[in-house]
């Protein structure tokens, strides 16, 4: 067995408009180059599970970073900061795009970088991942895990912070997309996932979708009752195979 080790720590990064924020960064300890992954958290905040996901990527040979998208509303514990952001109606899409760009630049600026960077997001972070892959030109691969509101049927949900439904930006998607969804999910529901796939197909995009029976929202999350071990194990295999194909040097 080869030597295994990783380092994980809180780091500073430059986000939207150069703002200095915090992020959790983990990378393998070996001396070689590795691909990068930006891990985008869900609406409740920058929680323990998302930090575990970052470490999981490092364990699998990736340099991974999860920017705390709510750092501007601190200081405080991530859950209290998340509550403040929720009460304020969430964070603006434009700011998230800037923060993810900054996290990507952080990874590419590290000496261990092979130059490739992928995105992955969960729940509202899945929507953010889809949005960012359409808005940022140098994303190499993106994984959308059950991102809701990629399709927006209720137009009253669009506002100054979230002015467009990401599906409307699909023509700008330049990288391969992996989508993972639970068939019992209510947002995105099966019809919305089908409509997203239809749009990707219509525009000739490089994508693969996998849908899981007996799984709803957040079925990867071991800290939630929604966790579905068999579906999650298969889903993670899909994620790593996808990144191996598109992010390896």
């Amino acid at each position, binding site marked *: 067995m080869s030597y295994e080790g990783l380092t994980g720590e809180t780091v500073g990064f430059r986000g939207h408009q150069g703002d200095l924020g915090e992020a959790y960064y983990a990378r393998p300890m070996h001396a070689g180059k590795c691909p990068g992954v930006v891990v985008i958290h*869900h*609406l*409740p*905040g920058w*929680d323990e599970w998302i930090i575990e996901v970052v470490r999981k990527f490092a364990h699998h040979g990736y340099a991974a970073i999860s920017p705390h998208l709510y750092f501007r509303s601190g200081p*405080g514990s991530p*859950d*209290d900061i*998340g*509550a*403040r952001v*929720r*009460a304020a*109606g*969430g964070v603006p899409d434009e700011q998230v795009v800037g923060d993810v760009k900054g996290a990507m630049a952080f990874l590419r600026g590290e000496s261990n970088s092979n130059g490739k960077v992928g995105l992955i997001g969960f*729940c*509202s972070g899945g929507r953010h991942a889809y949005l960012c892959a359409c808005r940022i030109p140098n994303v190499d691969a993106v994984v959308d895990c*059950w991102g*809701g*509101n990629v399709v927006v049927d209720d137009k009253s*949900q669009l506002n100054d912070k*979230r002015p467009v439904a990401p599906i409307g930006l699909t023509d700008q998607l330049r990288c391969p997309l992996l989508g993972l969804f639970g068939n019992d*999910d*209510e*947002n*995105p529901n099966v019809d919305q996932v089908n409509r997203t796939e239809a749009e990707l197909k219509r525009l000739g995009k490089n994508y693969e979708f996998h849908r899981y029976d007996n799984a*709803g*929202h*957040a079925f990867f999350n071991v800290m*939630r*009752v*929604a966790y579905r071990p068999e579906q999650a194990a298969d889903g993670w295999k899909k994620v790593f195979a996808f990144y191996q194909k598109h992010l390896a040097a």
Partner: protein
Amino acid sequence: MCSYIVEKAHVSGSAKGPSGWMRIDTANVYFDHPYHAPLDHALGIDFVCEADGARERVAVELSAASARELVTKIMVALASGEAAHRAA
């Protein structure tokens, strides 16, 4: 899916938070993924004082059934308590 929908109730009173008792003027109420409770979705209430910047909160995450039970019991307690005080 994470929901951005928050109902704001204007309230008047106090809550005991991380730094002791504090005045509160707002209850932010939502139904979404909880941070701590082992539930898919929870009814969350964050009691804060917006007039003081809402930097601290008193938070609860309740199952939908228990949130409805709480609503019922609040109404019962108010009715019986107000009746008792009127009779005194």
